[in-house]
């Protein structure tokens, strides 16, 4: 009886290897470590105060110790090289098929929950964290606690593949021990669609028992100790591990670099082949050149030693960064050090995992180092939604809807702006002018002129804002100076005029219209009647016009303009032209062929409802 189940298929349609596997191979050890340790951190137990422990083992394993080894090899041998996409990978797999000894990497976590639902029979469509982990590639299952869920790392759901892509045969096992001490062993392998023993099979195989209702996980008994998980939690075993992933020192470097904050805060302890990294001894790894380049000039990635120093500085405070809708608050740590050659801002999640060493535009070589950590679970969730699939960068790629993409871009732009400001601010405090010339004292005649002009509109109040005294700048948008009562002629100048604009107001795309300003329009309603008068007689550009179309937009409670949605026929029965004593034709948001007599439009509307208070904006098409 085969231990690996591959779903059958009627015919082979797709023999391309999943691109995700290739991509994750490129993310290397960093992708693998981040995915697995993040999962462990997310599964931490709320009832324990102890840190999450992850034990990483890199060792050798004999083929006889691997469950279903022969089945996998047979399947691999039956894969056909049909196109350039899979040629190289299959070629590589084939070259190892006859080996007897392989590398393996395992990640075992402690003080964690393990996966839920391992004891049930799962059809592929049911959701539990077990199913999602075992059988589905792109699913993320929520687990009840809203706040906690906001802080959990994985969101794309594809990260699980990180483990498969570290294996030559794309195989991984996971041994689960849940709260009831129920121990199961599962696994999955991702090949390509293939023919085997006269049947066609799908590309993914599962280490589980296939029953009529679905898949049932095997009990974890009788397997090699490498696969055993005796305490509550999860253990990932990656057999046939690719050799470039089996580097102990690189593993330690990545762990320290990606989870600096988590380890430093005592939330995580990691053991790599017996070498334990914890809150107390973290420093010894960071400043050991076996794991980290110490020379600032050469440090380009793995900048944990610098980040560590930044963390040791007192907390700087908060910074707020806006997207299109709201402000997001972050803790900000900052350090200035003239020795630093590559200025970076580390974006960390609240679980202590680093997402990106962000290069701030225009400040890439500035002598600073900063760390940003979300303040609340809301911010954390927002940040998580911006992460790319391998948790190595924030960008707008995870969104398909333009609205969210634009919002993400706005946030990221503002992030660059805000951190830039902080950098400029702190740097200018630190570096006194090497040149004694202090620009504040210099009299620029030109500058004085600007200042004079601006002072008409702008004034400065000195009050304290935050911890330092800041200038609060006040701007008033009154159109005229002073508050003396105005004369009639001065008033007539106020708010007058038209502006030629190009807009899409109707069905015919962008056209030119004269946008009419409030000062030349008068509206009045009484009973069921509305009167409208527009006076362009004193505007030289268009006062000779005799005839035109009037287009109308509605302004809603938020100040947004709606033109296409506005329909005159819903509000009015008839519209009369009082200049011509004629009924006017009107359709959707346009009134056609309105007459102008001596530069004035005069209309009378019969309203359908008495309490019509729509706020409108008017355009003239000549």
């Amino acid at each position, binding site marked *: 009886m085969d231990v690996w189940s591959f779903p059958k298929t009627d015919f082979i349609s797709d023999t391309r290897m999943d691109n995700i596997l290739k991509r994750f191979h490129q993310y290397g050890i960093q992708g693998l470590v981040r995915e697995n340790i993040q999962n462990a951190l997310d599964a931490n137990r709320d009832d324990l105060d102890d840190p999450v422990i992850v034990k990483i083992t890199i060792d050798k394993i004999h083929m006889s110790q691997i469950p279903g080894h022969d089945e996998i090899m047979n399947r691999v041998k039956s894969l056909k090289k049909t196109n350039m996409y899979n040629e190289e990978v299959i070629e590589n797999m084939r070259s190892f098929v006859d080996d007897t000894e392989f590398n393996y990497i395992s990640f075992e976590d402690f003080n964690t929950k393990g996966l839920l639902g391992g004891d049930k029979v799962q059809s592929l469509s049911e959701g539990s964290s077990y199913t999602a982990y075992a059988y589905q590639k792109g699913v993320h299952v929520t687990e009840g606690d809203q706040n906690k869920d906001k802080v959990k790392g994985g969101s794309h759901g594809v990260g699980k593949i990180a483990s498969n892509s570290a294996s030559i045969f794309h195989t991984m096992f996971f041994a689960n021990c849940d709260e009831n001490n129920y121990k199961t062993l599962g696994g999955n392998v991702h090949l390509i669609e293939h023919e085997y023993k006269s049947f066609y099979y799908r590309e993914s195989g599962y280490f589980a028992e296939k029953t009529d209702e679905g898949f049932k996980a095997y009990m974890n008994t009788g397997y090699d100790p490498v696969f055993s998980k005796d305490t509550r939690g999860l253990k990932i075993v990656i057999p046939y591990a690719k050799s470039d992933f089996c580097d102990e020192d690189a593993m330690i470097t990545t762990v320290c670099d990606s989870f600096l904050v988590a380890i430093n805060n005592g939330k995580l302890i990691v053991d790599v082949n017996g070498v334990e990294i914890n809150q107390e001894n973290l420093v010894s790894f960071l400043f050991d050149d076996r794991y980290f380049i110490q020379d600032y000039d050469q440090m380009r990635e793995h900048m944990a030693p610098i980040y560590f120093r930044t963390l040791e500085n007192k907390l700087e405070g908060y910074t707020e960064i806006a997207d299109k809708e709201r*402000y997001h608050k972050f803790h900000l740590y900052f350090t200035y050090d003239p020795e630093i050659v590559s200025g970076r801002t580390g974006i960390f999640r609240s679980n202590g995992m680093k997402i990106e060493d962000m290069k701030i535009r225009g400040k890439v070589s500035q002598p600073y180092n900063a760390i940003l950590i979300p303040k609340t679970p809301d911010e954390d969730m927002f940040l998580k939604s911006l992460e790319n699939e391998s948790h190595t960068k924030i960008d707008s790629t995870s969104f398909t809807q333009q609205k969210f993409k634009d919002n993400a871009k706005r946030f990221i732009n503002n992030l660059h702006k805000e951190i830039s400001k902080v950098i400029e601010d702190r740097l200018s405090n630190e570096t006194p002018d090497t040149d004694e*010339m202090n620009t504040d004292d210099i009299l*620029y005649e030109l500058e004085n002129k600007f200042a004079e002009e601006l002072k008409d509109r702008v004034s400065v109040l000195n009050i304290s804002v935050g911890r330092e005294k800041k200038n609060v*700048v*006040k701007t008033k948008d009154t159109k005229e100076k002073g508050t003396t009562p105005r004369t009639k002629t001065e008033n007539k100048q106020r708010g007058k005029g038209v502006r030629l604009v190009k807009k899409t107001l109707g069905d015919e795309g962008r056209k030119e219209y004269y946008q009419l300003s*409030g000062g030349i329009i*008068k*509206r009045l309603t009484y009973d069921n009647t509305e009167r409208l008068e527009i006076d362009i007689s004193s505007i030289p550009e268009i006062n000779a016009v005799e005839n035109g179309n009037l287009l109308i937009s509605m302004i809603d409670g938020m100040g947004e303009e709606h033109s296409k949605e506005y329909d005159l026929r819903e509000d009015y029965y008839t519209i009369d032209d009082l200049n011509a004593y004629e009924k006017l034709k009107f359709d959707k948001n346009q009134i056609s062929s309105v007459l102008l007599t001596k530069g004035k439009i005069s209309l009378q509307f019969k309203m359908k409802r008495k309490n*019509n*208070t729509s706020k409108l904006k008017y355009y003239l098409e000549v």
Partner: protein
Amino acid sequence: MIFKKEVNFPYPVLSQYTTDYPDSSFELDVNVFDLGKSYKFTIDYRLNSSFISSLLSIKKASIVAIFESIDSSYYQCCDELIIPKNRISLSKKTQIQLFIKTNSRISLANNNELDKFYDAHLSKVFIDKDRVLAISNVVRFDGDLKHPFKLFEKEYDKTMETDISVELTSEMIRLKYRNKDFVFPQNKRYNPLNNSYFYLGLQKALIRFLVTYRDEDDDSVNILNIDDPSDGLDLKLYNLMKIKGVETYNLESVDKVIHSISDRIVEKQIITMRGFIENEG
């Protein structure tokens, strides 16, 4: 919602964007004081309309203040408002506006401050409860500017590769020179010789402004249509352009804008240079 766009109500409203009340005005000035854990805003308004003032005195209308910062808040108005610092952040843009709303249905029959357009049917016009009667100007606070009136700053850097470089920081136009000698002495006699640097700085800043704020399908920017910029340098340029009446510009007309907002800087430079040449010769 802060009312800024030119919007027409179906009845007369007192505001600086309409001429429904030709001789009346409603102006707002606000000052702010730091009380430690909160801010005190003194609301100083001048309502020049006896019709609306009388409605206020018999409580048929009341004044509401809108504070728009991170979100919008409405307050019944008075002389001063004390708002805790966790509700308002002056280091970001905060806008304040007053509006007067009706407390009950009112008749405009006794309103003799209106434009004559309204005369004919005034006795039949009623304004319902909770409608806007008047809107004041907007007062805006930005706590972020370190140099609210300065546009330029100067820096020397011996290690620069080029002789001069124009940088745009979050608040200023920074002129960097490799050598102190590249800058002419800052006194009345020699300073205009530096004007070409200012011209370059303004050009770069205005082009960046254009690129940032222009309409999507357009190659020009419309100053009257955009919201107040939150970037410090852009805000100063915006204010200057508004004061000088610049409404729109594109790449071709940047020079015109510089000409409008500055005071003949090219001409003055040339006059100064000529002066020296003639003296030498």
